[in-house]
């Protein structure tokens, strides 16, 4: 009897030592981890931060463990070089190392802001942007607000648009234009550099440009909803850097009768790479003021290019699938993951602090899986009709859209 008890006690003691000890996650937001004087430590915190906060591990084929094993000795070498003769890496060397680490990551929202640990020199690197620049149809092309302004003017000069108004608010700009077809029917056209429509509509505007900016949104919405001789709607999402997802209520909700289930979302609920929540459906609800463009058979065309980013892509994807919707232009940027404002609620998304520390990594909080099309992060939305600027210029897509509306 005594022997038996001894055996039992011995086994119990043996058991308590059999489980492995877990590693403790390093918090890249902890003030203790924001400042350091070692390149290896900076890489360590960056690696750990991404290991936890990056939301696409389930989709990404990057071997993150291999990244650490491969690159850690190189950062150690930077530290040793500094110890030996006080030398710090030049920008090319420094960025090349982080490029090596992140170039295959699919999140196109990802932007690294890192300071040299000794000189505080700031380096910014966006792997998604590099990927887009390397696309065949993008190489050599110009994109941006200025280019859009010139191209829209060309449209007016070539009578593709009757006239229009150019509004500006801070860094943002927009253009509202009308095209009257030969039969007297009208086309409503809106271009914006970003999405902030709902919030803008609540404002009065301080300068003339701002008032025009706000008025442009109101005028386009008003024309889309009330114009009796409306031939078609054009929403130009080209060179639009994205913004508030809530604007879907205006650009989609105004033209649907039933709520649209456009995607499923999930985020991370734990520090592990695969601690995801379930997929949760995301809907666009019909707006209070709306128009049944399906019954009226009014085409709704969205124009895109490689620099239609984030919300500009999400709205394009939904409009493309509306009964009278069509997407014309280039395959988009590929940054669909949504960013949430309250990062501490999530175990993913943006981390770090560049003002009080030496790293800041801007990255998505939510995975977006489009209904039918799946996760297109890093790939972008493919248009219904592909028109490349390299071949047909900016004006090519506009021409195609108007031809489509005329023939509809």
């Amino acid at each position, binding site marked *: *009897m005594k022997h*038996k008890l001894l*055996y*039992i006690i011995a*086994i*119990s003691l043996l*058991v308590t030592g*059999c*489980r*492995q*000890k*877990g*590693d*403790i*996650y*390093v*918090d890249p937001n*902890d003030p203790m981890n924001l400042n350091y004087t070692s390149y290896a430590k900076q890489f360590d915190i960056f*690696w*750990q931060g991404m*290991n936890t906060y990056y939301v696409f591990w*389930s989709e990404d084929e990057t071997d993150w*463990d291999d990244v*650490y*094993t491969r690159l850690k000795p190189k950062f150690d070498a930077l530290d040793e070089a500094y110890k030996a003769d006080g030398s710090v890496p030049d920008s090319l060397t420094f960025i090349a190392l982080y490029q090596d680490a992140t170039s295959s990551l699919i999140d196109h929202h990802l932007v690294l802001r890192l300071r040299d640990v000794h000189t505080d020199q700031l380096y910014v690197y966006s792997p998604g942007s590099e990927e887009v620049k390397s696309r065949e149809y993008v190489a050599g092309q110009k994109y941006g607000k200025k280019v859009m302004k010139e191209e829209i003017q060309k449209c007016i000069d070539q009578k593709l648009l009757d006239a229009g108004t150019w509004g500006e608010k801070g860094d943002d700009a927009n253009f509202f234009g009308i095209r009257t077809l030969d039969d007297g029917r009208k086309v409503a056209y809106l271009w914006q550099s970003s999405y902030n429509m709902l919030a803008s509509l609540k404002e009065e505007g301080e300068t003339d440009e701002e008032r025009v900016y706000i008025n442009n949104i109101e005028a386009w919405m008003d024309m889309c909803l009330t114009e009796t001789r409306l031939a078609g709607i054009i929403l130009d999402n080209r060179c639009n850097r994205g913004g508030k997802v809530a604007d879907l209520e205006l650009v989609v909700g105004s033209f649907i009768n039933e709520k649209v289930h456009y995607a499923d*979302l999930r*985020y991370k*609920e*734990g*520090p*592990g*790479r*695969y601690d*995801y*929540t*379930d997929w*949760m459906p*995301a809907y666009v609800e019909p707006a209070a003021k709306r128009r049944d463009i399906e019954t009226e058979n009014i085409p709704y065309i969205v124009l895109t290019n490689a620099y239609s980013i984030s919300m500009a892509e999400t709205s394009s994807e939904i409009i493309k699938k509306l009964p009278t919707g069509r997407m014309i232009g280039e395959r988009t940027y590929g940054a669909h993951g949504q960013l*949430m404002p309250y990062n*501490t*609620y*999530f*175990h993913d998304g943006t981390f770090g602090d560049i003002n009080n520390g030496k790293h800041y990594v801007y990255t998505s909080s*939510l995975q977006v899986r489009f209904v039918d099309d799946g996760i297109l992060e890093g790939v972008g939305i493919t248009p219904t009709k592909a028109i490349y600027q390299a071949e047909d210029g900016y004006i090519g897509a506009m021409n195609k859209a108007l031809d489509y509306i005329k023939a509809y």
Partner: protein
Amino acid sequence: MNNITHFRRGIGRTLGVLGIVVSTTVVLTMSALPMYAQGQKTNNRGMYTAPAPVQRSEIRSGRSGVEYEKVRRTRRGAQYKSHRYSDIDRSAHPGIWTLGATIGATYNWQTREAGYAYDMSFKGGWGANAGVTATFKALEWLSIRADVLFTQKNFGMERMQPELREQNIHSDYMCHYLQIPVMADWTFGGEIKSHIYTGAYGGAWLGGNVSRKTLLVTDEYRARYEFTPEDNRIDGGLVGGLGVSWDPMPYLRIGFEALFYYSMANTVKRQALMNDTRYNNTVVVGVSTKYVF
């Protein structure tokens, strides 16, 4: 809609397993009754009547004629019979093998390194356990026991930030396991026997459900748990516990027991550089009915 389907499937599967267990128990119990009746007197209503008590003098003199009948004397000097149904011919009923069913409740919690996820509070979860149990008696005081069990290892997580607590953000995990414990059953006592179980178990994580309230939806929902490439679905570890059993009638043994399953298999596969440890600890309290061969 999918969630509801998964939920229904989950219930169906659970009920199916329980059905097998309950029917096994009933069949085994029923099959024991006629054998019991053979060696028993019945009254005119067909009810069993208790056998006449064996006289102490008969036992002492060995005149009861029953091989296993013994009188044991405890240290305190009290006497008791080691077997109540002494007038049954035990030569055809050596009681070496038993086979039966067990059913009970589980309470599981995880031991994990939560790291800086300090706003997550993990709690234990109640579940069910059911399965088939068999023993082989090697010695009077030592049997080998093996079970095949459906065991739930459930646990929950709550977020601790005040705003998230207000919204009742939480996840309750229900994890279904198949597990096969093999134990040494150290047996003591007489009419009511005590058992100490020590052994090891192997198992597999079959599936599960999650009931969640997240930040993006207003209502709690329930969905099937989707396995990830980092989930370790192989389980194994040590098991130990205590139990009591008695034979209310020949061929039938009823037991109560409490077992502790100490998993040594991390539910997360080890990454090269970050070992995130999440081990299950499971207490199973249950009742078993066994057919004694």
